């Protein structure tokens, strides 16, 4: 079942086009990463999904429902937090959750369970304003999971956290995914998304430049790391290899992206040029590599189109 579906979703602020006709779908049970640099339109898109920002054009379907009433009804099945955690600073974590629980119509038991999941029970009666950033993020997650929503939307949940905090958030998200929740996770921390998500969409300047499974996004031409003799000579020779799509210098090594993935062919070609390699190893393409590549290409196309 498709949980989120957008078609040509657009938001314009005066002359600024924040979201430019994006279309994507998220199916039940997916952990969907929504990636993009700061200011790319991630939060605006989520705001439109949650009904707090009115789209300029385009359509949204949530759980197959659309229209004002349908979307309001569907949003009762969503737990979400947008940007930084938004709570009443003078209230305790518990009172803040009581407010959310009253809106969602859930009881005290659900609050206790949520506090248990995010490991905040001991500090629940302390004022929110005394919480560390990590605790605030965890309280935000507790609020989103109150009422056992089918879809959880988290906007930059690891923002500003130390490695320990990030690990905790990752574990919580992992445990929610294990419970079969559909999770829509916005982030610019690519390695976090790569570890957590099954599917991703990459947004750049308000447009989706690629979406699919993480493995689809990260797969592509195989890149090899090679070393041997003078780096400049090696770089020049590798660039001449017919199957080389891209060659880049990486410290004392050269990265060669091959269209055919034939490392032996590359080795023989370089040997023919009198370069004997001391190191030749495939390098796994990370989501970060894919992201940088896709956003760079998209930026070039967008600016080219603008000209």
């Amino acid at each position, binding site marked *: 079942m498709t949980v989120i579906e957008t078609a040509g979703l657009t938001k314009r602020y005066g002359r600024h086009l924040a979201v430019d006709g994006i279309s994507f779908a998220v199916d039940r049970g997916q952990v969907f990463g929504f990636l993009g640099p700061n200011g790319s339109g991630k939060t605006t898109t989520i705001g439109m999904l949650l009904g707090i920002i009115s789209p300029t054009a385009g359509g949204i379907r949530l759980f197959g429902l659309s229209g004002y009433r349908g979307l309001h009804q569907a949003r009762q099945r969503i737990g979400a937090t947008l940007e*930084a955690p938004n709570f*009443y600073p003078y209230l305790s974590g518990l009172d803040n959750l009581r407010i959310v629980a009253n809106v969602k119509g859930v009881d005290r038991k659900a609050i206790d369970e949520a506090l248990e999941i995010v490991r905040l029970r001991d500090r629940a009666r302390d004022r929110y304003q005394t919480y560390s950033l990590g605790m605030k993020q965890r309280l935000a997650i507790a609020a989103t999971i109150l009422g056992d929503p089918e879809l959880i939307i988290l906007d930059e949940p690891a923002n500003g956290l130390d490695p320990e905090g990030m690990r905790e958030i990752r574990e919580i998200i992992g445990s929610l995914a294990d419970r079969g929740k559909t999770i829509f996770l916005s982030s610019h921390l690519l390695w976090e998304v790569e570890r957590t998500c099954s599917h991703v969409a990459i947004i750049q300047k308000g447009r989706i430049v690629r979406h699919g499974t993480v493995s689809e996004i990260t797969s592509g031409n195989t890149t090899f790391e090679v070393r041997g003799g003078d780096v400049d000579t090696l770089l020049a020779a590798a660039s001449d290899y017919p199957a080389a799509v891209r060659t880049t210098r990486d410290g004392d090594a050269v990265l060669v992206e091959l269209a055919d993935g034939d490392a032996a062919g590359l080795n023989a070609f370089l040997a023919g040029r009198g370069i004997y390699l001391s190191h030749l190893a495939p390098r796994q393409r990370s989501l970060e590599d894919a992201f940088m590549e896709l956003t760079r290409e998209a930026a070039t196309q967008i600016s080219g189109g603008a000209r």
Partner: protein
Amino acid sequence: MMRAMVRNEWIKIRRRPAFLVAFFSFVALMCAAYGEPFVRELTARAGRFTLPRAWEGILTDPAPLALLFGASVLILLVTSEFTWRTARQNVIDGMSKEQWFVAKLLLVPVIAILFVAAQAGVGGMLAALATDLRAADAPLIGPHDVHALAGVTLAALGMGALAFLVSFVVRSPGPAIALFFLYIVVIEQLVLVTLLRRWDALAPAVRFLPARVSFTLIESTQYYPEAVARAVQAAEKAGRPGPVFTDTGDLMTAAAVYALVFVALAFLAYRKRDL
């Protein structure tokens, strides 16, 4: 959802330090204002601060404070929801935008009644303590007093609705309070009054400007014939023309209409903008 909205507003208000400080400061001010006549009554027994005679002063003298404290508190309670972004979070959590608006709207009568009740309650309690209740031959509260209480409450509602509108337009506590007082003191009292008085045909409209309506509704001359007689006598003594009084019913109608218009404008401003 209505029950949840009321419970949530109660949680938010009763723990809010800014609200508690403002409310108890107001109560302290009322105690100070009525304390002096109370002590004088206990020592002199002149019958000036006893019920029902004291109601006139209790209901009208400190009423400007009740109106302004109430409006300021309302601005604080509403605008902080925007600065903390809890307005958007409440909607994300499952309230519709309309339900959230209604939840805030509930605060207008609650705050207005709370401050008027504190004013009347503190004054009335001290006056009751100074009154020999066994010797009292008249009812402790008369029809003029009930009329005055209704008028003051309506004035507080009108002023609260104006504060409510400003809160939804400005969405930030400091600038909203500044704009509210700028409107009352400068824009309405100086600019609009000066402009309208330049044209004879428009001069009567001055009496029906929003803040002027609320402040006229809290004057004792609107409810107490003794106060009217005193005002006429004072004018005669000073050689001034006799004072002109606006019909209290017209003022009450105007206050109610303004309250509805301000709430409607606040809703339009709220609907138009994203959270």
